[in-house]
């Protein structure tokens, strides 16, 4: 089994296509939509947790790319600007998935990007605006 959180950028011409349906029907993949925006006349953005057998998964990704969907791992899209973070920890109880955690000894705040679902709650809560989203 392979399971990854990915960000899909749909060009304008694909916004009305049932792309995710094909992933399920033709490639036997499971999906969980974490976030989706469709901006009319512009583009679509969808954050998916996609899982399935490795072979199916890779073929599904190839299919998406062949359609013109741009794919990025989610971990590249939500980042912490280390120069701005002061390790205060006010973001910690706001994060719904436990991706922001205080180390009990060092009191530093760790950001586990593999747990992040890009809900963006931390972004505006951060007093120094250290959490950045780059979709």
């Amino acid at each position, binding site marked *: 089994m392979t399971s990854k959180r990915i960000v899909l950028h749909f060009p304008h011409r694909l916004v009305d296509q049932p792309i995710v349906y094909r992933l399920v029907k033709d490639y036997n993949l499971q999906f969980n939509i974490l976030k989706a925006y469709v901006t009319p006349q512009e583009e679509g953005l969808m954050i998916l947790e996609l899982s399935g057998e490795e072979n199916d998964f890779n073929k599904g990704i190839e299919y998406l790319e062949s359609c013109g969907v741009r794919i990025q791992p989610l971990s590249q899209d939500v980042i912490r600007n280390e120069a701005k973070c002061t*390790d205060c920890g006010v973001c910690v*109880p706001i994060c719904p998935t436990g991706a922001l955690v*205080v180390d009990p000894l060092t009191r530093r705040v760790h950001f586990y990007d593999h747990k992040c679902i890009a809900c963006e709650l931390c972004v*505006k809560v951060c*007093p120094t*605006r250290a959490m950045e989203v780059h979709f």
Partner: protein
Amino acid sequence: MKTIKEINEKIKKGQVVVVTAEEVIDIAEKKGAKKAAQEVDVVTTGTFGPMCSSGIYLNIGHSKPRIKLGGGICKLNDVVAYVGFAAVDICLGAASLPDDDPRNKAYPGEFRYGGGHVIQELVAGKDIRLEAVAYGTDCYPRKRLETYINIKDLNEAVLFNMRNCYQNYNVAVNLSDKIIYTYMGVLKPRLGNANYCSAGQLSPLLKDPYYKTIGIGTKIFLGGGIGYIAWQGTQHNPNVARTDKGIPKAPAGTLAVIGDLKQMSPEWLVGTSMLGYGASLIVGIGIPIPILDEEIMRYVAVRDEEIYTQIVDYSQAYPQMLPGTLGEVNYAQLKSGKIIIQNKEVPTGNLSSYTKARQIAEILKIWIKKGEFLLTEPVAYLPGPDSGYTFKSLKERQIIL
């Protein structure tokens, strides 16, 4: 018994023993307060949190022809500054905003850029755009000024904070059914989170609860440079409930501090945006405590478990000035990441960086060990619990027309 003079002699000879307010806890426990007081000369404290009553004043030098800003209007990077003084003295507060900031009209407001951010950029050596309008006089004829200013060209650039370094602070929660946006951060409904703001066992005034060594004139680490305590801070409130060891169990003493902004660093003065609340400035402060006797050692050896504070509802009790709290917790409980309020487990968040507080205490320790920082005797003491000094609410009176 030691005197500050004797400690300074040791600093000059390179024989001083300095530890942080965190390190001293175990030393005092292992050796006992008496022996620890003989061995340790100085304990360094630190704190790094948003301090909204921070500000700067500048003298920009006279233009040719001259302009008198006093009574006029002045903006720094669009943020409104105060010029109700003479010709070219300017004051800027951390919470000031540009005129066109939507504030909370687009609720919750983001407050992306305010006085605190201007202060951080100025300290970082960036050019700041100044725009001013004056009314013009015979001796100061000019009516408009638009220029860049840079900290290196200013005559004076001074950080002056009228209330900083709170001795203890509330834990903020939200009992209501809707999310609220406060200076204590975003508070989720129905006790969704509990936010606190103190370095606890590293915090300066919690380690000198009766202000026996920290007073007016005390030399401190301020924003990465050297500053001094100018006065008690506004809302100084020494007469609150205290533990057996004398530690206030609610917000109590405060400090007004001053220092040369030109020596400071953007690492320790950080512009801040509090969602739905406003702009602010995070300030790094570190204060050395001379260990004059066993009593002072007992105060500095207090640990998080022994420092208590009050849980306050910021949806009703705080805004409406209602008395009473939801109970008290200690800083060890707060730092564990969750506390129990009304039988509910509530996750905690700190607005004050303990990591940075620790770094400040370490830096101050190094300065003292290297002989670069000598201790000062207070020139006057801060009002203590028996001084009669109190923190009053506003008495509103009817305006007579």
